[in-house]
């Protein structure tokens, strides 16, 4: 059993919530509140960077590091621990959360009512997401997973626009439905004699759980789909994606950034950590279903995106399309012959990071445009490039990255996904590639209609991004370019987390040659 307490992860996870509480109780004055929130988020970004740097990448390093473990519930019948730790899969996502959390706070500078509450909920949200990415105890994981509900609901419903209450409720009902599905699975795993623990590390590493299909209270395949339902709603994949466009469209900018940037990633992370990690046999068996859902999401999302006239809605639907690629990447484990490689999974994991930065940046740009023009209706926009050069450049880079231009981060994850998936399902992969071609279409068309075209007189008074607004743009562009030029900075880390999963899959496949064929 892994034990220890280094404290770094605990600090990273709880600093935002603690800071938010201090702001709520002790800070007075709008200006002070904003700067205090920025300071807290910046400190958390530094901590997340520290986690990224400290993480030991050497050959003989432990799989899970920086472990913080305390007894939480210990009784005769229920045992759970407060158990945080990171492996290669979670480290980049922690960094992503820190980065986007900071950007989201800076993107909230214009919020002008009930500021304290606003920043409290935003920072609490960050704690919840950080907790999901670092929990190594299933019960704790579920706790953090549900913790995010109320902050996000209130952020959308209170500070949103348009039909905000409707969208917030829709978001909530979908998410809580997913949570309910996961709750059944979590409890069933715990009560199964073959598992009998909430300890994820033990579950991931013990062969008895893998071979213990006879000892589960529900068939493993049923548990697989219960978990999958929760993560698929969050990802989201077709046909449970319908909450996303509404939630995005009506959420305030910062909430959109957090929603697209990190919260969708909780779904992808859950798929990799739990569906792939705990169910190596079932994930192979059902790879075709994941592939089908993934390809439908990619194509359906892309086709619907083309038709959108609301900027935020457009980006939201493009997210459905791009998150479909995560499923396609995971489906790469369903190879018919030979060994599974980590390529497709790595692509899926990379897609989580790159989509987070790219879409985060797109939503930041839309937020800036909306604040100035008070419209997100694409036909009403145009010719913004010469008034807002900085925003335009950032928006262009994000757009190009989104359509997979080589040299930017989106290209890396997409190519890895396709390489991985092609080996398993060649024709469906070809179909999924079509989605990328469509992406080029809708992104370029959108850029052309909003940023370029004839100058419009009513936009002549617009100003470019100021310093506070420019900082997140620069940070995100930097992340996109660095990962695009030197992807190994992330792929090497992801590999450390994914290799054990792949070897577990190969092991089960060799034990039971029928599985997945």
């Amino acid at each position, binding site marked *: 059993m892994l034990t220890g307490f280094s404290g770094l992860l605990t600090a990273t996870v709880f600093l935002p919530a603690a800071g938010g509480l201090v702001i709520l109780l002790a800070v007075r004055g709008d200006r002070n509140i904003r700067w205090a929130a920025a300071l807290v988020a910046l400190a958390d970004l530094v901590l997340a960077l520290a986690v990224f740097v400290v993480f030991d990448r050497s050959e003989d390093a432990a799989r899970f590091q920086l472990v913080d473990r305390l*007894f*939480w*519930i*210990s*009784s*005769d*019948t*229920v045992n759970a621990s407060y158990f945080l730790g990171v492996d290669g899969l979670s480290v980049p996502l922690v960094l992503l959360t820190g980065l986007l959390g900071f950007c989201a706070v800076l993107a909230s500078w214009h919020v002008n009512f009930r500021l304290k509450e606003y920043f409290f909920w935003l920072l609490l949200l960050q704690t919840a997401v950080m907790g999901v990415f670092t929990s190594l105890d299933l*019960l704790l994981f*579920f*706790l*953090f997973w*549900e*913790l995010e*509900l*109320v902050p996000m*609901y*209130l952020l959308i*419903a*209170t500070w949103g626009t348009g039909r905000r*209450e409707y969208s917030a*409720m829709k978001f*909530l*009902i979908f998410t*809580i*439905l997913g949570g*309910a*599905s996961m*709750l*059944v699975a*979590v*409890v*069933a795993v*715990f*009560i199964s004699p073959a598992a009998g623990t909430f300890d994820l590390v033990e579950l991931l590493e013990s062969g008895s759980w893998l071979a213990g299909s006879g000892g589960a*209270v*529900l068939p493993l395949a049923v548990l697989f789909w219960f978990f999958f339902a929760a993560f698929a709603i969050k990802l989201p994949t077709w046909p449970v994606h319908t909450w996303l466009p509404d939630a995005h469209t009506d959420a305030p900018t910062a909430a959109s950034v957090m929603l697209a940037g990190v919260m969708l990633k909780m779904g992808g992370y859950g798929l990799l950590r739990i569906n792939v990690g705990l169910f190596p046999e079932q994930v192979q068996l059902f790879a075709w279903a994941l592939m089908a859902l993934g390809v439908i999401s990619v194509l359906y999302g892309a086709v619907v995106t083309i038709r959108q006239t609301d900027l935020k809605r457009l980006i939201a639907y493009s997210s459905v399309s791009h998150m479909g690629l995560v499923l396609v990447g995971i489906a790469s484990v369903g190879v018919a012959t030979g060994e599974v490689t980590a390529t497709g999974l790595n692509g899926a994991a990379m897609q989580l990071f790159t989509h987070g930065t790219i879409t985060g940046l797109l939503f930041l740009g839309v937020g800036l445009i909306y604040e100035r023009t008070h419209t997100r209706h694409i036909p009403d926009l145009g010719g913004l490039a010469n008034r807002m050069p900085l925003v335009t450049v950032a928006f262009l880079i994000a757009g190009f990255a989104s359509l997979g231009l080589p040299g930017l981060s989106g290209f890396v994850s997409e190519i890895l996904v396709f390489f991985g998936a092609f080996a398993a399902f060649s024709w469906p992969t070809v179909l999924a590639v079509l989605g990328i071609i469509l992406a080029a279409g809708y992104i370029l068309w959108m850029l052309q209609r909003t940023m370029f075209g004839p100058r419009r007189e009513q936009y002549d008074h617009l100003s470019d991004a100021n310093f506070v607004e420019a900082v997140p743009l620069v940070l995100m562009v930097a992340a996109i370019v660095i990962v695009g030029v030197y992807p190994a900075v992330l792929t090497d880390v992801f590999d450390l987390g994914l290799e054990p999963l792949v070897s577990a899959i190969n092991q089960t496949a060799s034990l039971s040659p029928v599985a997945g064929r």
Partner: protein
Amino acid sequence: MTLHDLYLVSPQVALAGLGILVILLDLCVRRKALVQGLAIIGLVAPVALGLAQFIDLEQSGVANLVPAASILSDSLAVDRFSLFVGLLVLIAAAVVFLSATDYLDRIDRHQGEFFGLALFAATGMTLLVGATDLITIYISLELTSLPLAALGAFLLTPKSSEAGMKFLIVGAISSAVMLYGMALIFGASGSVTLEGIAAAVNVSAGSGLPFGGYAMLLGVALVVVGFGFKLSAVPFQMWVPDVYEGGPTPVIAFLSVASKAAAFGLALRFFYQAFPGAELEWGVLLAVLAAASMTVGNLVAIAQYNIKRLLGYSTIAHAGYILIGVAAVAQDSATSGFAAIGPASVLFYLGAYTAANLVAFGAVTVIGSRIDSDRIDDYAGMVRRSPILAIALALALIALIGVPPTGVFIAKIYVFTAAFNGGLAWLVVLGVVNSVVSAYYYLRVLRVMFLQEPPTPLEKIPVSVSSQAALVIVGAAVIWLGVAPGPVLNAAEAAVAVLLGG
């Protein structure tokens, strides 16, 4: 009757004595704060005596403090189980008294009777959880019900009188039905003690009982009907919404937690101790009741416009969740007795639910007494009118959904784990679906309080210090049970050991 026997019932005696004292004091003094103070501070005595009994239990190492030679030995048990639930009842009484002060300041008359009746009801509840024969059970139940009926009619408004009357009549009918069931059980087994009934059931294994065991079965069914009324489980829930709407809010708060805790304690002891050999029959029966209560309670709650009616249906739904734990009986392969997790999950759920519901009713009591309305629409913009009330009520409602980090979240996990352990996977799925449904109506209240504009001009709602204290302390307990449930879980598991046999 020896001195030691008196010591064994001393918490109950202290409670009843306190009730009489409060009524007498009310006759003598004009300042009502004194009466309130005596009722609240006086509760220290029964709590202290209960704790003394607990320490005695720990030191002597026996499961039950009542010796076999005592005249109480067949009718009352003083064990960890009765002390756990009894303490819960006393805590609930203390919190209700604390948060009722705002409410009672408006009705000047009969304050002594209010506290006195509530204390008599509490006496009945604490007796109920220790009762081990049918006669004591019946008398304690009546001692619980009659004061509550009087309290329900306390406001003397038409709705309040209707609530009291309804509670009285429904209570009387359910008591009668249960009494008939008890008579059948006695006739079939020849014993009124739970132990004796268990022996009769086990020895003759059903076949040797009069009428081939059918009389016994009918008796159990009729007793379940009686319990169903007390637990507010479907299909015996019709009285709940009307009584909740019409009765004085503090009384309803007390009814919804203390009375429920005592009734669940009784149900656990009754089924586990008198019918351990027949767990298949009553387990399935209770599972069906649980499913019906959750589903009906949650679905009907969606359509409510009055916060007290909403909480009434919510209490029906939660009775369903708790019944899952009672229904989840399973054999423990290691000890050859029953698995602890089912009844222990019931006790933990009762604790978590008590905390959350007390906060909810505490806030509703204060709000209702200030704005003279229990309509949810009148809660608009509550966060601006009184942040502490809005936040407390929001916390309670979020807890009742079962969202972390609150006690009910852990409790639900615990109950569902028990259900899996008892082979009731279908009930788990139904339970989580119900949790999703419940989120809708709880959050609607949240939305009104936080998102809608308050009426203009903005009127702040003052909250008395004692109400604030109650809300903060119990609100902290709601979160504490969610973040560090360990001690209470352990206590619950230790408490149910007496039920398990083996």
